[in-house]
């Protein structure tokens, strides 16, 4: 226990610079909550968006530390062909499977509307990015090729999300086994599967009273550094991985372990701030509310004490959400 009781609100992330993210396919940036993530001012994001998934989100372009790349993708560095499909989510450089091999929804969406030449760049050759903290890969571009050409950068990468197609939609997609083997051979372990998409074998041309979907169609595999890498991770990396797991996934157990290596007191405050530990017994026996704790919103913090409150506040309105 710390000598000086510390209120739980004193827990602070110590990140030492923004988290660098590459979102290949822009699937993460296309989410509604993306703006909330960016509002934390903790991320610096490069989104490769050849399918224009962010086309209806022009507001993103004005975000600080956000860059959208539309006419270039990651790969081996050689030019390739982009297949623009009816469903933009299925557009990529991999060739969609023939219609008979696809399930109902994908069958129509995978129809190629046009083929466009596109340049690729290797992960390791991206200028201006000394390291990548978090890499997100979709399933419509050659993920393993991207990884193979990014070994240098990946050595320091903390989090990798790979969309795994359990029911393939494109030719030469990297499957679950191939991806896990590659990741395992290069210092990563699979932590868990997220966003599992399920396929239903029930008919889609009948008005069913209820639904059932039972077969894995796809999932997002979450990879973190393997045990050996975790053990030798420095303070900065531990803090950043803890932050990513907490902020992106709402995971608290491993972040505590990572933080505990860096600063046990801060890790304890982390547990208190998330309700795993009570901070009550760490506090003094009395509590006095001060102006610094909770200033009257009709006074500015630096206001002189002899200022007439009412005169000052006569034109002010209470800020929205001031109390929430």
């Amino acid at each position, binding site marked *: 226990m710390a000598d000086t009781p510390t209120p739980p609100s004193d827990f602070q992330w110590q990140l030492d610079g923004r988290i660098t993210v590459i979102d290949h396919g822009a699937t993460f940036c296309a989410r509604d909550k993306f703006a909330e993530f960016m509002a934390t001012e903790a991320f610096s994001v490069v989104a490769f968006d050849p399918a224009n998934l962010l086309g209806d989100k022009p507001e993103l372009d004005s975000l600080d530390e956000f860059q959208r790349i539309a006419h270039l993708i990651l790969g081996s560095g050689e030019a390739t062909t982009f297949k623009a499909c009816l469903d933009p989510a299925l557009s990529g450089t991999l060739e969609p499977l023939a219609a008979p091999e696809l399930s109902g929804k994908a069958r129509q969406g995978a129809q190629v509307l046009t083929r466009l030449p596109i340049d690729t760049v290797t992960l390791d050759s991206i200028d201006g990015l000394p390291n990548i903290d978090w890499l997100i890969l979709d399933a419509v571009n050659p993920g393993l090729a991207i990884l193979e050409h990014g070994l240098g950068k990946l050595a320091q990468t903390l989090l990798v999300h790979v969309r795994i197609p359990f029911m393939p939609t494109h030719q030469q997609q990297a499957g679950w086994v191939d991806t896990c083997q590659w990741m395992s051979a290069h210092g990563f372990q699979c932590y868990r599967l997220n966003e599992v998409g399920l396929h239903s074998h029930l008919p889609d041309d009948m008005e069913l009273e209820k639904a059932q979907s039972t077969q894995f169609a796809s999932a997002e595999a979450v990879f973190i550094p393997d045990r050996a890498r975790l053990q030798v991770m420095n303070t900065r990396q531990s803090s950043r991985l803890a932050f990513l797991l907490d902020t992106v996934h709402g995971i608290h157990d491993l972040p505590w372990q990572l933080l505990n290596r860096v600063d046990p007191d801060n890790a304890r405050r982390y547990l208190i701030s998330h309700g795993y530990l009570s901070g009550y017994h760490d506090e003094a026996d009395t509590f006095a509310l001060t102006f610094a704790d909770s200033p009257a919103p009709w006074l500015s913090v630096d206001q002189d004490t002899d200022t007439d409150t009412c005169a000052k506040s006569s034109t002010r*309105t209470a*800020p929205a959400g001031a109390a929430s």
Partner: protein
Amino acid sequence: MSKHNNPGRHGAAHVSRQASAARSYEQKANRLYRDEKLDRAIALLRQAATQSPDNAKLQHKLGLWLSKQKHVDEGIQCYRKALEIDADFAPALIDLAQALGKKNHFDEAVPLVEKALELEPDNASGHLVYGVLKQRQGELDDAVLQFRTSLELRLQHPPRTGRPGKKKKDFNQPATEALLWTTLSTLAKAGVHAFAAFGTLLGLTREGGLLPFDKDIDLGIPNSEMRRACEVLEANGWIEMSDVQPHMINPIPFYHPLEKITLDVSGFVVDRVASRSCEGVWWDNVPWEDNRITEFPPLELEKATSPDDQPIWSLRDPEQWLDVLYGDWRTPDPDFDTIIAARNLRGFSLLTQSYAFSRIHEKWQNGQIGKARALVRHSRRHLPDDTLLRRLDTHFEALQAEAATAAA
């Protein structure tokens, strides 16, 4: 020519039979309504409305009863039907405006009540609803004016005083107290300095438990801890109800759907100019000086334990706190309304006035003359020269005397 204008011999007989049936259904529905069998009353009134589809009054009444049963959207549909039948039917205009106002649809509600008041400038209910809409929009000068106009009109044509409403049902006091202690302890363990306040503190201090019939729990917390408190409460079964009054930023209301208990969490701040801790009812669309602010001595809490030995925070000097808020808190006063009568109000702000005048109206309407008069008398402490309040005081005094004579 329409069927209604010239129904023909057989048609006329049919219409007459329908009208007669509608009257029978309505009469029976009225009896059920008086006996407070609302669901059955509504079912019969629907039958009446079906038999008499061009009767705006029936649709309006159905809307009122449905709204009373919390079927607000269906009630709105009935008001709209009434207005399709008779676009100048003022009661339907007013009640539709009121229902839409509760859903914060002010753009539609305000023109409706304005039209009603053009048609019937002396409609007291219209001015009351207009006042409520203005209040919720933060236009407090107008709100107070409308409430006062409504009361003036009622004084000119005093309504038949309604029967006092049903006594509040008793509540499961042990379960509510258990929830109070659990909630206080959960907040304390999560680092939130929450303490029993207002009616909850009064009950615990004076009665050793929650006040009878007081189903609300009142907690105070440092305003800076409000966000955390909301997170903790929501993670422990409480639902934040801020959407009911989206402009109200303090207190934050919660509801526990399992225990059916409401909780008001009031944020406290420090006004170092006044050397006071303050809380109140604050709306974000109202200038600060027009909000309702109360002033307390500096807020000091100490660690304590609940009856079931859970760690909690409590006020160091609850009696001093109650003195400041209630004055003589040791003597029970069932007519005390803290919003208006608190001893530590910072002035008698426009928001407080709008609460006062609208609540006088409400209590009068409900036949709670004692409560209405108490509100008047507390308001007169702040506005001693107000002639409307003086006349209301006199009127209510006479009503109380009449009631006392009748009882004797």
